[in-house]
């Protein structure tokens, strides 16, 4: 950014989601107050009612596409945005609500609502990238706030974000943890899940449950054989893969492969 140039404009958009990833932005805490010195917060309804019209230099998108109106809205957001980055499991994978993609959505509606006619929804919950081109996807349920910070600074400085695509195992070794699977026979998705959380589950004696989504080139069938060897039943293998990134490959196929 040259001296005197207008600061870049940031927009934050919400689709079907829990608000947790946007909240990570507000969790910057002390850095939060200084944010407007670097970047113009042009659209961020969770934090401010002041809005500035597009186009925007950087759009952060939380949530998945689940309604006809949102499918139109994300196209408009894309048109208005020089760079579009998705944040979190909903936006990058369709989220927990993508479990509807494995069921009949009409059954879902009548389970929850008494008057199905009022509800307008699409059959599937889809990732943003299934609807419009995206420039970067930040994984995590929720995203890690340090990684989010890195993504924003990278885009401000016109470089690619330094977000590792290796697995949780790398972080877990670095944290000095004993492997929960090897030592205790605890089922763990760490070998196929992308790092970024800080291996927080194995750090409290728990197996990873995959909330950061698939790592780069994971070998899910091999892990499943390992899990079966530990005595994990197919129904639980399906549950492991089919949670927060249920509809993202290879978790999707691996879940289907173990369905009876």
């Amino acid at each position, binding site marked *: 950014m040259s001296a005197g140039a207008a600061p870049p404009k940031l927009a934050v958009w*919400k*689709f*079907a*989601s*829990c*608000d*947790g*990833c*946007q*909240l990570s932005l*507000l*969790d910057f*805490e*002390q850095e*939060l*107050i200084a*944010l407007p010195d670097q970047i113009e*917060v042009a659209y961020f*309804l*969770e*934090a*401010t*009612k*002041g809005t500035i019209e597009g186009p925007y230099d950087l759009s952060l998108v939380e949530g998945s596409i*689940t*309604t006809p109106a*949102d499918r139109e809205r994300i196209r408009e957001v894309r048109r208005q945005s020089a760079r579009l980055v998705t944040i979190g499991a909903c936006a990058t994978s369709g*989220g*927990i*609500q993508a*479990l*509807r993609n494995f*069921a009949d959505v009409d*059954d*879902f*509606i009548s*389970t*929850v*609502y*008494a*008057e199905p006619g*009022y*509800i307008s*929804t699409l059959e599937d*919950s889809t990732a943003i990238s299934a609807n419009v081109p995206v420039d970067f996807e930040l994984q995590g*349920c*929720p995203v890690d706030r340090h990684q989010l910070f890195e993504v924003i600074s990278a885009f401000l400085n016109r470089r690619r974000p330094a977000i590792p695509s290796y697995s949780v195992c790398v972080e877990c070794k670095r944290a000095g943890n004993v492997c929960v699977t090897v030592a205790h026979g605890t089922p763990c998705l760490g070998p196929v899940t992308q790092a970024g*959380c800080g291996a*927080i*589950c194995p*750090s*409290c*004696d*728990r197996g990873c*449950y995959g*909330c950061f989504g698939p790592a780069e080139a994971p070998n899910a069938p091999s892990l499943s054989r390992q899990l079966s060897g530990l005595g994990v039943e197919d129904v*639980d293998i399906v*549950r492991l893969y089919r*949670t*927060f990134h249920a509809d993202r490959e290879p978790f999707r196929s691996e879940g289907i492969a173990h369905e009876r």
Partner: protein
Amino acid sequence: MSADQGGGTRTIRTDYLARVEGEGAMTVKIRGDEVEQVGLEIYEPPRFFEAFLKGRSFREAPDITARICGICPVAYMTSAFNAMEDALGIDPGPRVGALRRLMYCGEWVESHALHVFLLHAPDFLGFDSAWTMAREHREMVEAGLKIKKAGNDLLRVVGGRAIHPVNVRVGGFYRAPGRDQLDALVGRLEEARELATGAVEWVAGLPFPEFEQDYEFVALRDPDRYAIEDGRLVSGSGLDLAPDQFEQHFEERHVEHSTALHSLMRDGGTYFLGPMARYSLNREQLSPVAREAADRAGLGPECRNPFRSIVVRAVEILYALDEALRLISAYEPPESAAVEAEPRAGTGHGWSEAPRGMLWHRYRLEDDGSIAEARIVPPTSQNQPRIEQDLRAFVQPRVGLDDERLQWECEQAIRNYDPCISCSAHFLKLTVDRS
């Protein structure tokens, strides 16, 4: 935002409510000098949690329902494990209970601080965000962020992560924190408690519109402590219920303008959940530090002006920090971080006081521990009819205000409830189809 449709009718409308969690809209229709219609519309897309919980293991309910809300995941986890432990007949004991309460204090601090300093306070001072407010009140915004950080730090240490904690399970925790880990928090919590004392005074000095209503307050009560993580449900008119009696006294209705279901008492009346209800019903159980701050802030024995809920929230922040420090100094690590839960068929009910009000869960389990039926009633859908009633009562004597002012104050009246629209939109289920 406003239009004169002729015939003396004007409509004040906010299409996207800002500084609330989730997506909602507000409509106020005035004909002549009469308020004709008010609506808080919730159009957050439905996510169908109750439907896809079917067939999942009882062990997964805390992690899955946490994803309903990124602001109050501990509330969802707590109501879920309370219900599951009820269904399975297990009790992790007082040491695990104390640790759970400690974690929940972290969520109250984090969620209330977000609302008080970043979402609600700007309304009172005429700012559109905490950033613009910080230009004139930087010290207070910084204090608020420090307080919020103390809550998040507590969640990280006990829960393993601030948003969607990972260390929580049915039966207890995966790993109980060591004494030293909790002791390391004391300095930060004490500093936050100091700042929170000042914050109560600061918010008490904000300008409040004259507006008092005759609310039916509903909140949990525990004989031994200010209820947070469990209790019996009591009301101003004398209800005193166990979790499995909730449905006998409250019901939900599906209305066209909302993807959340409205919740009402069986007699059709609205009720009020959240900090003001808790304070008005359980004030005597606050710690001396919090009660004295409430007295200095002029809150009195009860509070019926919802605009002053910001003061009550600040008092609850102070209480939660004080209580966290008490729990840490009394901390004895549980002998076992969790009791094992064996699956069995049954039904369980559970609730807790989410920062914005009571959150109720019910699950029916099969023999193998898989969920046959789930029902979740979040606080905002319970408050929604009451919010609309407030709007109507608030606008009527103010119809003379210009549209811009009226819109501002109506939005503020909605924010009084710290509505969590993401929470309310997903799930609710009617027991009877009335079509």
